């Protein structure tokens, strides 16, 4: 799973798997799992150089209130070559979030109270952008610090922004091997 290249050098990987602490507003705790798959097509175009299809799944808890699960697909671009320090930008236009408030009592049209089903919550369209700083750790992968801004729509009759801080690790999996000299 972890690639160690010839002479200890790590070439660019075709895939990265990320695990991070997700802090909504920093302190609302959560977790973020992601996978980046390198775009192999259009290699000659600089736009697609070091570009990845990004898929992620997040969960966080609004303390004492509700849980939110989110998933997103987008496009991620790393800095031209992955050195000791690097950075990335991710655009995730396809995102969806589901809130969960299990003890929700519903007043129905007749004015009567209905028991909770345990799955009450709401779906939101949730596009986002993310910027991150990466630091190579030996040859195993990268420490990652990311800042994400997203929006929940429709929230009441408007849009609500969400801010996440992510601190975690990016594993390279698997990597291309260089040919022996």
């Amino acid at each position, binding site marked *: 799973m972890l690639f160690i290249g010839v002479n200890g050098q790590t070439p660019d990987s075709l895939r990265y798997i990320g695990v991070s602490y997700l802090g909504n507003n920093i302190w609302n705790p959560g977790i973020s799992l992601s996978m980046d798959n390198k775009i192999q097509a259009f290699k000659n175009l600089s736009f697609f150089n070091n570009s990845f299809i990004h898929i992620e799944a997040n969960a966080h808890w609004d303390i004492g*209130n509700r849980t939110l699960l989110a998933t997103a697909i987008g496009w991620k671009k790393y800095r031209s070559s992955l050195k000791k320090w690097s950075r990335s930008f991710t655009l995730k236009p396809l995102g969806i979030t589901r*809130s969960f408030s299990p003890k929700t*009592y519903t007043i129905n049209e007749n004015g009567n109270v209905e028991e909770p089903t345990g799955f009450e919550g709401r779906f939101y369209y949730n596009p986002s952008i993310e910027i991150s700083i990466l630091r190579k750790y030996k040859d195993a992968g990268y420490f990652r610090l990311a800042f994400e801004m997203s929006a929940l729509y429709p929230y009441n009759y408007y849009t609500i922004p969400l801010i996440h801080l992510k601190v975690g690790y990016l594993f390279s999996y698997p990597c291309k091997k260089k040919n022996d000299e």
Partner: protein
Amino acid sequence: MNKWFWLSILIITTWSCTNNRFRIDETIHVRHQGADIPVYVHGNSENKTFLVVTHGAGSFGLVYRDAAFTEVLEENYVIVYFDQRGQSMFEGQYDKPENQFELMTKDLVALTEVLQYRYGDDISLFLMGHSWGGLLSGNSLLDQTHQSKYKGWINIAGALNLEEISQERKELIIEICGSFKTQSEFNEQWEEVESKTLLLDAEDSETYDLVLEQASEVIKLLGKEEVVTSGITGEKLYRAMIENNPIHWLISDEVTRPIEAALKEGIDLTMEVENIKIPSLFIYGKYDVSVPPRMGQKAFENLGSEDKQIEIFENSIHHPFDSESDKFGDLLVEFIEARR
């Protein structure tokens, strides 16, 4: 020796469980007309007495959850805090309502239904409203069916007459300035506020914010005079930043602002409160330039209840539960105990 150690553990554990048997600490939601109202329920249910707290404009339910509320009221009763429609952690998907005030009133009625459903029809309910919440809770009690569910109404600095609030503020500002300017080391500042306020035509809606500006100056000067002492507690900060989502709070308040529509409409319950017959307690701060006590006094005189009481807190502005916390807690316990 071993058996005595484990026996002690058993006794302590049993005693702890017994002590907390009536304690409720939970969050529920009430789904009503396209939205989910977050309801935070905390306190001692032994007396089966519930106090529903209706927050002020631009605020949120949990901001009240410190000092008198946690140290006194939650020890004796169950306190129900909630976020009103379009405020803070309130969540939903609905079109912008034509009459947000009426819809918020109906939300309060729906919340009451759920409380009785969940905790029993035999619970004793008291309704409290602070500032804008006083207006909202008072308006909800005009529904006689809803009113009959409550054993008492506690109105704290309730803004019951939005039509004349600016004029009332102006008069109180001038009165306070007049009483301080002759004897204070800050007399120049008092005079400045007084002279600026005198120039404002409070009946002109354009000057609403200008009157509020001078009210803010009075509050600052009262702080300098050390007439009113209160600050933001660590607990309140925790509620605002951690348990509440400050971004939700700020954005929602910026967008929804139900009080603006209510001000435009000039909602006035001064005469309509004659239809409120349940025992009522009015509390106002002497120096409350946000909701002057005279406004509360006028409504109090028309209140339909025979069992009614008004208290003016001498060292308070708009948050008597913060500035005179002990007195506030004792007064509420006395009021509730006599009527539950």
